[in-house]
C-alpha cells in the first residue's frame, strides 16, 4: 500500500493526465468487450463466457493480417469481422443447443471453447509472447496535455471506441433493427409471431457482440503483448463492468468501464495488489444495493 504516492500523483497534473489516459484506454477496451457481453445477455439471455477468448482471437487475427498486408486498417477489419463470423458459427453450432437450459450447461460449453481456443492459438501462433508493434501511421511524438504526455495511438483508440459506443447506442435506440432487437429481448415469441426470423436475429446479435470483442482485441494488439490465455483477465473485468453497469445496458457498461479503467490505472499506483479486491468489492456492493446494476432493468 502506498497511498502517499497516489495522493502525490493526483496532486500533479502531469501524472494525473497520464494515468487518466491509461485509465481511459483500459476502460475503452473493457467497454468494447463488455458491451458485446451485455448485448448478447440482454437479447439472448445467455452469458458468453468465451467472450474473452474471442477478444484473444481478434488480437491474433489482427496480428496475422498486419504481418501479411502491412495495413493496420485491414488488421482491424480482419480482427472484427473474422471474430464476428466465428461468433455466428459458434452460436449456430453450439450455443443455440443450450438455450433455455441450465446456466451451468451454457457455462460448460463456453469453458470447453476457452480451453480449445487457447490451445488452438498456442498450436498455431506459439506459446511465446507476441508483439505486433505500433503501426507506422501512429509513430508520432506523444501529444502534451497539461504537462502529461499521451501517445497518439491512445487518442485514436479512445476516439474510435467512443464512436463505436455512439453508433451502438444509436443503432439500438434509433433504428428499426434496434427496435426489433429490443422487442426480442422482452418477448421473443411475439416477435417471431409477427414475422421476424428470430433465429437469424439471434445469430446476428451474437455476431455483433463477437465483432465488438474482436475489434477490442485488434485495437489492443499494438499496445498489448499477445499470449494464449490473454482473454481471461479481460473476461473477468468485463464481467465486473457488465454487472456494475447493469446487464443489457450499453450506457451503463460505458460508465462502469471508465470507472473500472480509472480504478485500475490509479489503483496500480496506490495499491497495486489490491486493485482486483477493490473491483470485486465494488461489484459486491452494487449487487447488494441494486442487483440489476446501475442502469439495468430490474430483474423480473
Amino acid at each position, binding site marked *: 500500500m502506498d497511498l502517499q504516492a497516489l495522493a502525490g500523483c493526483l496532486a500533479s497534473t502531469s501524472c494525473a493526465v497520464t494515468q487518466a489516459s491509461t485509465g481511459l484506454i483500459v476502460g475503452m477496451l473493457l467497454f468494447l468487450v463488455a458491451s458485446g457481453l451485455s448485448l448478447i445477455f440482454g437479447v439472448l439471455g445467455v452469458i458468453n463466457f468465451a467472450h474473452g477468448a474471442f477478444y484473444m482471437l481478434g488480437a491474433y487475427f489482427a496480428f496475422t493480417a498486419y504481418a501479411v498486408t502491412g495495413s493496420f486498417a485491414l488488421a482491424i477489419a480482419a480482427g472484427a469481422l473474422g471474430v464476428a463470423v466465428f461468433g455466428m458459427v459458434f452460436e449456430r453450432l453450439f450455443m443455440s443447443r443450450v438455450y433455455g437450459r441450465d446456466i*451451468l450447461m451454457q457455462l460448460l*460449453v463456453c469453458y*470447453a471453447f476457452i*480451453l480449445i481456443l487457447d*490451445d488452438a492459438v498456442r498450436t498455431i501462433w506459439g506459446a511465446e509472447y507476441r508483439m505486433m508493434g505500433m503501426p507506422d501511421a501512429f509513430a508520432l511524438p506523444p501529444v502534451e496535455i497539461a504537462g502529461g504526455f499521451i501517445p497518439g495511438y491512445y487518442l485514436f483508440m479512445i476516439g474510435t471506441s467512443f464512436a463505436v459506443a455512439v453508433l451502438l447506442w444509436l443503432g439500438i435506440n434509433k433504428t428499426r433493427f434496434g427496435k426489433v432487437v429490443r422487442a426480442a429481448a422482452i418477448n421473443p415469441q411475439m416477435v417471431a409471431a409477427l414475422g421476424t426470423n428470430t433465429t437469424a436475429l439471434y445469430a446476428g446479435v451474437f455476431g455483433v457482440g463477437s465483432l465488438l470483442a474482436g475489434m477490442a482485441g485488434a485495437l489492443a494488439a499494438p499496445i498489448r503483448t499477445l499470449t494464449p490465455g490473454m482473454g481471461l483477465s479481460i473476461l473477468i473485468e468485463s464481467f465486473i463492468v457488465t454487472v456494475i453497469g447493469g446487464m443489457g445496458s450499453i450506457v451503463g457498461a460505458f460508465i462502469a468501464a471508465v470507472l473500472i479503467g480509472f480504478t485500475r490505472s490509479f489503483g496500480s499506483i496506490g495499491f497495486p495488489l489490491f486493485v482486483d479486491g477493490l473491483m470485486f*468489492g465494488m461489484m*459486491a456492493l452494487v*449487487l447488494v444495493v441494486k442487483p440489476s446494476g446501475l442502469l439495468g432493468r430490474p430483474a423480473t
Partner: protein
Amino acid sequence: MMPRIAPAYRDVILAGAGLLALLLLPVLFPHPALRDFVVYVIAYGLLAMSLNLLVGFTGLVSFGHAAYFASGAYVFGLLMQSGQVSVPVAMLAAVGGTALLALAIGAICVRLQEIYFAFITLAFQMFIHSVILTWVGLTGGDQGLRGGIPRPPFLGIDLNDARTLYAFCVVVFVACMLVMRQIAQSPFGYTLRMIRDNPQRANFVGVNVPRVKLAIFVIASSIASVGGIVLALFVSGAYPDFAFWTTSGEAIFMIMLGGTQLFIGPLVGTVMLQALNHYVTILTEHHGIVLGSVILVFVLGLRRGLADYIHDWAMSRRIRRAAPDQREAPRDKLA
C-alpha cells in the same frame, strides 16, 4: 430375498465398506502415486460433493465455493505454524472459522436470486483471493504459506508417516461423506429439494427459505473447508490458487461431469477430472483441445453427467424389462 435394512444402517454399512476398500487399496497396490491420487480425489471430492449440496440439491449455483476451501487450508495452516495447537484442535478451529465466514458472506448472498447469486459469490471469493495476495505478512502473498505445515503427533497418531496420513485422510473423508448423506436424506434435505423445485411453494407451506438457504450454505462451506484442510495437510502448504475462481470452476466442472442428481455423482466426476488431468497431460500436449472436446461430448451428447446418465439408463432398462407385465395387465382386465 435380501432382508430389508433401514436406509440409515445401509448407509453406515456402505460407508464402512468404502472405508475398508480405501484402506486396503494401498495394501493391494502399493504405489505411492496411487495414494497421492486418492488423497487429491478426497480433497477435491469434498469440495465438489459439498458444492453439490448447493447446486444439485438446493439449486443455488455458487461460483465462489473455493473461498471456503482456501479458508480451511489457510486457517489450519496458520494455526499449525503457530505451534500452539494440536492437529484436531486446529481442524475444528478451521472448520468453525470457515463456518463463521460463510455465515457472514452467506447472509448477504442468499437474498439474491439465480444468476446474481452466482455473481456475488464469485465477487466475494475474488475479494478473499485479493486479501490473501495483499496481506503478505500473514499469508505469504502469492508464494503461499511457506515453511511447511508441521504435523506434531497427537493421541499416538503420527501424521508424518505417509501411510498414517493416508489413513487419516480416508477416515475424515468417509465421516464427511456420511454426514452429507444424512443431510441429503433428512427432512431438511428434502426441504432443500423443495426450495430448488419451487421456492414459492416452499414459502407457502411455511419454510423460511432464506434461513434454510443460509443453513445449507454454511454447512456446505464447512465441509469444503475440510477438503482444504486435507489438501493443506497433504501438500504441507496453502496457496492463493486455492481461492482463485478456477478452483471453483473446476469444482462445478466435476459436478457436471459426474452428475448432480445422484448423491455420489460429484465424486465420480472428481475421479474422472483428476484422471483426465493426469493422463491427458502425459499422453498429449494438446491438453486443452482434448479436455474441451470431452466437455462438449458430455454437454451436447449425454446432456448430463456420467453418473446421472448411467442411472437413467439403468432405470429405463428396468422399466423396459417390467413393461411386458404391465402390457399384459390391462388385457387381463378386459378379458
